[in-house]
């Protein structure tokens, strides 16, 4: 299970002056759900297209299943399922015909193909839409069709580039569940997104990308440990004095206290019972306060702390 599925070494891709991918290194093990997380324009799609040999690149090496990936490496291509960022289906074919076509790109045997197409339809929940043309599908269903076309041939490696863009929450959950199911069935998954919750929810390992550079890599927990921030406490309160802020800052593990718009924000760099200590202090001063919230850091916080800007959602 620990064999490498995809290895990217020192990948560099330029579009004229624009450096879209900057010495990127990735190593994806078989059986993983690997997340590529980064804001729009960070180079995720470019990286994926290089991995698939759709783009030529300026520097670097790419190996898939421990063999060099090239445009004519058809034995490797046979094992990959691709779900492109832009939905790529035939407008003129029905849902079923589309899945049959894309499955047919890999599977010649008619009987087997029929079975696979049926399974893909079931898997993506498109049973009621077999005879529909893509134009008649909602955004979420269209994305599901796009996925069905990519996975029908049961590939060992599935690459999904932002499969949930512009999808309603219901379809999105179904898609995420499906990806985890495919992984349980044995497929290695590469998943790109700019939604950190999604990535955090399903990915076993994550690379955070910004401006074509990998700024951090690891499990969600590992990534969160990279930053100082461990706990964020917010309390709705009418007013506090400057003395109070200084006193709160003196509490153990607290390293930042801010008050703005009747909201007190306290950042802690670890430890436990931070909330209890803060509340004890406020109660001792007989303040009355409303809503209290304690949160663990998100990948957005990781991104914010490393790059100094929001990941956006």
């Amino acid at each position, binding site marked *: 299970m620990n064999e490498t599925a995809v290895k990217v070494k020192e990948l560099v891709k330029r579009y004229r002056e624009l450096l879209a991918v900057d010495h990127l290194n990735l190593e994806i093990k078989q059986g993983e759900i690997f997340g590529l997380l980064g804001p729009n324009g960070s180079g995720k799609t470019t990286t994926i297209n290089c991995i698939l*040999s*759709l783009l030529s690149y300026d520097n670097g090496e790419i190996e898939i299943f421990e063999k060099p990936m090239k445009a004519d490496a058809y034995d490797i291509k046979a094992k990959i399922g691709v779900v492109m960022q832009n939905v*790529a289906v035939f407008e*003129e*074919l029905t849902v079923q015909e589309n899945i049959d*076509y894309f499955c047919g790109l890999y599977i010649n045997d008619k009987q087997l193909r029929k079975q696979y197409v049926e399974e893909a339809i079931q898997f993506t929940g498109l049973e009621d839409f077999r005879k529909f043309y893509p134009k008649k599908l909602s955004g979420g269903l269209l994305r599901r069709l796009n996925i069905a076309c990519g996975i029908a041939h049961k590939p060992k490696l599935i690459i999904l580039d932002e499969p949930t863009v512009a999808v309603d929450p219901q379809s999105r959950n179904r898609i995420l569940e499906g990806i985890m199911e495919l992984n349980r069935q044995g497929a290695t998954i590469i998943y790109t997104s700019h939604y950190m919750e999604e990535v955090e929810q399903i990915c076993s390992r994550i690379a955070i990308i910004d401006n074509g550079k990998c700024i951090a890599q690891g499990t969600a927990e590992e990534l969160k440990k990279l930053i100082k921030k461990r706990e964020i406490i917010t309390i709705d309160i009418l007013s506090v004095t400057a003395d109070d802020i200084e006193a709160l800052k003196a509490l153990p593990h607290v390293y930042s206290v801010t008050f703005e718009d009747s909201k007190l924000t306290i950042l802690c760099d670890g430890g436990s019972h931070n909330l209890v200590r803060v509340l004890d202090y406020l109660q001792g001063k007989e303040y009355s306060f409303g809503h209290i919230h304690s949160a663990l850091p998100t990948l957005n916080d990781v991104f914010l702390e490393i790059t100094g800007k929001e990941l956006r959602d």
Partner: protein
Amino acid sequence: MLNFKTFFQIAKKHIGTCFIYVIIFLILMVVMTNINKGSSTSKFEAKSVKFTVIDEDDTVASHALTDYLATKHKYISFEGKDISKIQDNMYYEEISYVLTIPKGYEEELKNGNFKNLVTHSMRTDSAAGYFFNQDVDSYFRALSVYQASSESLEDSLSKAANVMEKVNANEVEMITFEKTNNGNSPSGYFFQYFAYILISVLLLSMSPILMTFHNRDLAARISCSYLKPRRKAAGIGLGAICYSILVWLIILIAGGFGGMYRYDPIETIALMTANSFVYLIVIVTMTLCIASFSLSEHALQLIANVIGLGSSFLCGVFVPQWMLAENVTRISRFFPAYWFIRNNNILAGFNGEAFNPDEYLLNLGVQLLFALAFMTIYFVMHVQKKAKAVA
């Protein structure tokens, strides 16, 4: 044969557009064929001219000329030869042509001078006069030939009149032959318009189908699959060829219903059909090539019109090849339509051209070379496209 099947699945969705193009061009074809039928009939009718002669020479020779012309045209005599009366009659279209034989005409002939002996006036708005001029010219040509080898003028006059009568008969025969062969039998014109129709119908109706395969996102998606580009190209190419043969058959059958093959021998029709089939292959391969340059649908329509109309004008679809300037035909040799039309001309006997099997095969061969070239470009483009930037 995944892409072959898909080609027709897509074609099915575009069938409406395809049929509209086929029908529009069929109607166009019928209209154009009929226009030609009309013009060749009127050419024949213009042959008999009402004329009179002002004979100032009044000799055996001048009478012989008048008699000869009277066999071919309608002679109207005017007593007293009142010139103003003649002019009135010309004005009222009673006569179209007045020939003046000057004094000393016979003398000039005897001296062996055959040029500019007679003068004429004719209605300028009538094409008939030109036929008359031709008859006068050929009479003097014949006369000069006999006068060169015979001692007496009388002898030459009767021989020339004799032979001109025969030529006259031949000419009429040739014209009536032409009349049944081309005027009423439109197969020659029908296949001539094939050159234009096929380019337009195939380029316009197939491009939406081919464009689908060349859609950026789809092409990228397909090119990272297991399918090799050569197999994809072959599947699409085969689909396009079968589709085109269907369209070709529809046009041929429609031609049959339109009575386009009625007057020609079956062999001629068969050779014309074979010629159009080879041309069809050229056009399909060309279409495949053009559609491979991921262009917009508008650009493709523009190209279809430029190529369709351009090569039709240059290669003799709208204007017969023998009327084109030499530097035009020199250029048009680089278009496949030229070779198709060449074959059609010799088969239809246009402009008095005779059929020659060697030339026929040569013209087919040149067309096949075009097809081969287009096919090669098509495959090379498909195989090279695979690693192109798509993101």
